[in-house]
């Protein structure tokens, strides 16, 4: 079966297992005695982190197993999507304490990438809200991992890109919710300095993120719309769902070019007229603006695309971010989606991406010369003491990975201890030297 990530590059021919129970998942791990295998959820990681010649899909580990209706704790299969959790629990007054920019990811995937959201500076990563999970390790044993049981394995698996085993189920803590609406404040910022200052001065906001026009140059470089959000108190929990459109076929690759994207970005920026505005909107368009356009990855054409997401420490600040943004704007390569966020402190997981500082994520159509630009950007990011997000990556070098993730040896030691080396591997892990 042909498999690819969200960015549709690379493509591999894979054997896929679809276990639907604990015993069949254990059997699937045992069946790949000689060949390495990797877990896969909804395939929303951009690059090759859920690709391998043998894949175990969590699609049918998709059951809700237990719920504590008063405490908001839920135990569910690793293949349950965040969308399903929202569908079932929002009407009952519960929300995800941390959610990434798409709800079409599984619980297992959210743990493996230790995803973050617009509230990282307040709530941390997804794993903060994971109480425990059951993991099939290389021996075929199922180990329960938490902060007190196999804590080393817990810390390595959260953010561990599936390289420690197959997550079967997890217990999560949900957050109480008053209503389905979010009050969004939009601040228009004329350049990067203003955008960073706005993010910094609004650290008390529950949700904060900035969309950046990464093609603006000169004194307008880094012009941005900073968006802040607070859950609206009151209102209904059962707001109607939005209609979902879909991209029916691949768009021609030339459609997205620096002119069309530049025009879009200018329109998007100037559409907001006032320096500061407030409006109330449903949580879906606030958290998941792109989820209402199914298969939007087809917009980039058959050749695919990728996302470059990095973080640099707070100390590197404005200068660091300016230098990198200048290089990107100077490259003439367009990106609609340049998202800037101030992250909170790093957690104790060995490979989690976030660290206290600034993260920028940009989508690029795959074209000749792009990876050379990324190499240059890598050097700048790593020199500042930053790192590249593995969930988005399809090309980082082993050296670049090791510099960015200095705890990689501790990670490998845990994998060694539980027999994961040579057993749980992806195309990405081979490339970045985690065999």
């Amino acid at each position: 079966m042909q498999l690819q990530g969200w960015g549709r590059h690379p493509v591999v021919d894979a054997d896929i297992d679809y276990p639907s129970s604990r015993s069949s998942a254990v059997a699937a791990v045992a069946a790949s005695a000689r060949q390495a295998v990797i877990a896969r959820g909804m395939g929303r990681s951009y690059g090759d982190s859920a690709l391998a010649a043998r894949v175990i899909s969590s699609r049918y580990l998709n059951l809700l197993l237990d719920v504590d209706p008063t405490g908001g704790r839920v135990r569910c299969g690793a293949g349950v999507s965040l969308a399903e959790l929202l569908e079932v629990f929002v009407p009952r007054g519960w929300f995800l304490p941390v959610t990434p920019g798409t709800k079409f990811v599984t619980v297992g995937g959210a743990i493996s990438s230790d995803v973050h959201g617009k509230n990282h500076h307040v709530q941390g990563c997804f794993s903060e809200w994971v109480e425990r999970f059951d993991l099939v390790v290389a021996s075929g044993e199922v180990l329960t991992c938490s902060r007190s049981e196999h804590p080393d394995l817990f810390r390595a698996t959260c953010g561990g890109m599936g390289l420690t085993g197959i997550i079967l189920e997890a217990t999560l803590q949900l957050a109480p919710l008053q209503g389905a609406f979010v009050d969004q404040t939009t601040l228009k910022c004329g350049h990067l300095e203003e955008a960073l200052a706005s993010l910094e001065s609004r650290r008390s906001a529950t949700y904060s993120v900035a969309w950046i026009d990464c093609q603006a140059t000169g004194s307008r470089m880094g012009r941005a719309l900073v968006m802040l959000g607070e859950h609206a108190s009151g209102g209904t929990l059962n707001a109607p769902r939005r209609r979902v459109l879909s991209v029916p076929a691949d768009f021609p690759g030339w459609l997205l070019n620096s002119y069309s994207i530049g025009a879009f970005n200018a329109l998007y920026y100037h559409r907001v007229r006032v320096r500061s505005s407030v409006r109330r909107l449903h949580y879906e368009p606030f958290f998941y603006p792109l989820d209402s356009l199914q298969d939007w990855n087809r917009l980039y054409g058959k050749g695919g695309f990728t996302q470059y997401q990095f973080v640099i420490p707070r100390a590197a600040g404005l200068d660091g971010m300016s230098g990198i943004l200048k290089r990107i704007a100077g490259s003439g390569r367009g990106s609609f989606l340049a998202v800037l966020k101030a992250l909170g402190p790093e957690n104790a997981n060995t490979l989690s991406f976030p660290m206290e500082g600034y993260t920028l994520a940009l989508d690029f159509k795959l074209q000749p010369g792009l990876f050379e630009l990324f190499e240059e950007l890598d050097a700048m990011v790593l020199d500042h003491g930053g790192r590249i997000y593995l969930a988005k990556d399809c090309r980082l070098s082993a050296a670049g990975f090791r510099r960015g993730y200095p705890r990689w040896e501790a990670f490998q030691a845990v994998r060694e201890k539980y027999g994961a080396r040579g057993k749980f591997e992806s195309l990405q892990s081979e490339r970045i030297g985690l065999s």
Partner: protein
Amino acid sequence: MQRILIVGATSAIAEASARRFAARGARLYLLARNLERLHDLAGDLLIRGAAAVDWAVLDVNDFDRHAAAIEDAARGMGGIDVALIAHGTLGDQAACEHSVGLALQELNTNAISVISLLTLLANHFEAQGHGSLAVISSVAGDRGRRSNYVYGTAKGAVTIFLQGLRNRLHRSGVHVLTIKPGFVDTPMTAALEKGPLWSPPERIAEGIERALDRKRDIVYLPAWWRLVMAVVKLIPERLFKKMSL
């Protein structure tokens, strides 16, 4: 509150349908082979809002158990308002061509067991004078094709049986629904390469729920398959026999 019996309850389309029924607060009775999955699925449906969920293990090819299984379900729920028959296997066509035993087994699972269950359920529903019998047939039953005609034969038999049953039960106020999904991305079809014609089981489940509510007779899911199959059925046999479909 609807009392719904689902046979083949752990099939992907049945599970997706059961979740929709559960969200509406239905009372469910599940029959399937896989005990581990049944047990966990029952818990899942309760969390999603089902009023109650009972289940029992049934291998549909154990024909002698059919009557007792249906009686237990009817007694357990105090009656059956909707029965959804959703079990099936997609046998290996090539293997069936070389083994009479395999071919007959496919026909047993996909046609004879369904006819047996429907015969029993029909009498039950006829006596109570209301209710819906919903059965998952397939577009494959609309015309025999070399790539899966054993499966197609079974589904075609089910489709025709349902036509007759609908004609008979109409007088008693019993609704009979023939569901003809196209290509659906489920464990049954996991080995097949997917393309733009494929649908997720959730989409089929949505269509089943709507067809039950509207008391439709025959639905193609997604609906555009009706057009595709109309064209496929129009091709003269003289040409059709030369095609690779």
